[in-house]
């Protein structure tokens, strides 16, 4: 079963994208917050930073489960010269290191935003390397620019989501500070884009697949078999976005507390959608290979 085989990579990619997305957005948020809003920093940003470091570590642990011989995994950085996998591991490790360093500086009170930005750049580069790994394979469904779109959009969708959850968590019951609310409203745009762009690209992706080689066409057909899950994926994402939108707008209009129930529900739906999307990503991969033709069917 696919989950049984590919769960380490599914989790690894999802979790690292989640972590990098969260961290990056929190750094962005931090950069626009003045020292007046230190409480926002401590209640929203810091927990998020710590969480993203932990999640990134968890992601890397998951990746070990994919390896057949994990105890020599340290050798995997040896071929950065040509291997995107080497590069991904290096940037992934580096991100974790810098993010952890920044987290420590936060904890010890002397946070250096520059360190944070460095981690962000490394992290976003890590996503770039991750997507390039798939681009370097022989799976037409993965070598498409769709992979880049998908990975970055997941990064930001999950990132914005965790900021929203963070804000909701920390402002339970009470209306959020205007700063936080403003951040949330701006992030909504990003969430919307992250969910909408992949859908916009889907027809282009499909058309390109259908006009490729045998493996490419087989992938397109397989994607067709996953029509129902795909529809569900988008319904989950947009339902989630809808909930998020209504929660944020309602708050903006009513100046009340954020509806945590709605936020959590939105997070759950969007997370489910992203996970389903990632599952489909792995499920429709058909490799270019030797197309054996033993026997034939009468319809030919």
């Amino acid at each position: 079963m696919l989950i049984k085989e590919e769960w380490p990579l599914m989790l690894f990619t999802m979790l690292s994208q989640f972590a990098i997305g969260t961290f990056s957005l929190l750094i962005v948020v931090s950069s626009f917050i003045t020292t007046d809003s230190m409480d926002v920093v401590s209640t929203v940003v810091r927990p998020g930073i710590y969480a993203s470091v932990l999640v990134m570590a968890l992601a890397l642990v998951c990746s070990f489960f994919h390896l057949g011989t994990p105890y020599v995994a340290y050798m995997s950085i040896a071929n950065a010269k040509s291997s995107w996998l080497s590069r991904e591991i290096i940037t992934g490790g580096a991100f974790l290191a810098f993010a952890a360093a920044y987290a420590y500086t936060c904890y010890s009170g002397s946070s250096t935003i520059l360190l944070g930005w460095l981690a962000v750049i490394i992290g976003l580069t890590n996503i770039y390397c991750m997507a390039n790994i798939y681009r370097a394979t022989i799976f037409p469904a993965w070598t498409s620019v769709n992979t880049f779109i998908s990975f970055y959009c997941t990064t930001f969708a999950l990132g914005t989501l965790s900021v929203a959850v963070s804000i909701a968590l920390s402002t339970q019951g009470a209306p959020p500070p205007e700063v936080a609310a403003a951040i949330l409203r701006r992030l909504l745009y990003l969430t919307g884009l992250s969910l909408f762009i992949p859908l916009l690209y889907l027809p282009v992706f499909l058309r390109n697949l259908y006009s490729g080689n045998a493996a490419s066409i087989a992938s397109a057909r397989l994607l067709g078999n996953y029509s129902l899950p795909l529809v569900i994926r988008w319904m989950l994402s947009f339902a989630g976005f809808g909930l998020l939108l209504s929660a944020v707008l309602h708050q903006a209009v009513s100046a009340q507390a954020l509806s945590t129930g709605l936020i959590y529900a939105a997070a759950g739906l969007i997370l489910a959608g992203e996970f389903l999307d990632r599952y489909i990503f792995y499920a429709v991969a058909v490799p270019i290979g030797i197309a054996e033709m033993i026997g034939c069917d009468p319809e030919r």
Partner: protein
Amino acid sequence: MPQLGFYYDMTVCSSCKTCQIACKDKNNLDVGINFRKVHYFEGGKFPNPWAYPISMSCNHCAKPKCVENCPTGAMVKRSEDGVVIHRKERCIGCQMCVWSCPYGAPQYNKKAGKVGKCDSCVDLRANGEQPACVSSCLMRALQFGDIEEFRQKYGGTVDIKGLPESGITSPNTVITPNQYALSVNRRLDNVD
């Protein structure tokens, strides 16, 4: 140093699979792992069916994606003969090479947690012998040697109907095809 590779004459190959078994025996492979495989293709319409086999292991490509993508450098293209070998001690079993080879040459061994691949029997060749598949072939359809010499001598091609497009990795294999194996309109022909 000359690039070495396999020459395969599909017109005389009887698809007996002796090469596949000789390779399994030499490399101690379990069921499910075949460093060399005999593929079969058929079509046409009775009473004019056509068929052809392709016996293929590793093509020791000029642009080996497995070498490019391997994170540990376990996959290496030797400078002395251009043969791509797999250094087991450096393999972490990430299967990146399996995801990179259009010909399915690297095969993952779940029990060992590592990948394995045809290495043109470098140890036998060091002893002056031929690769196991070549010396086992009942119809003498396989040869291993200087690939340029094979190209000159036999012409041949690697763009065979059913094989991935040769431009991806530039395989160093020469195949003498039968007429049905020549790639015409590859895209449409390969559709099931």
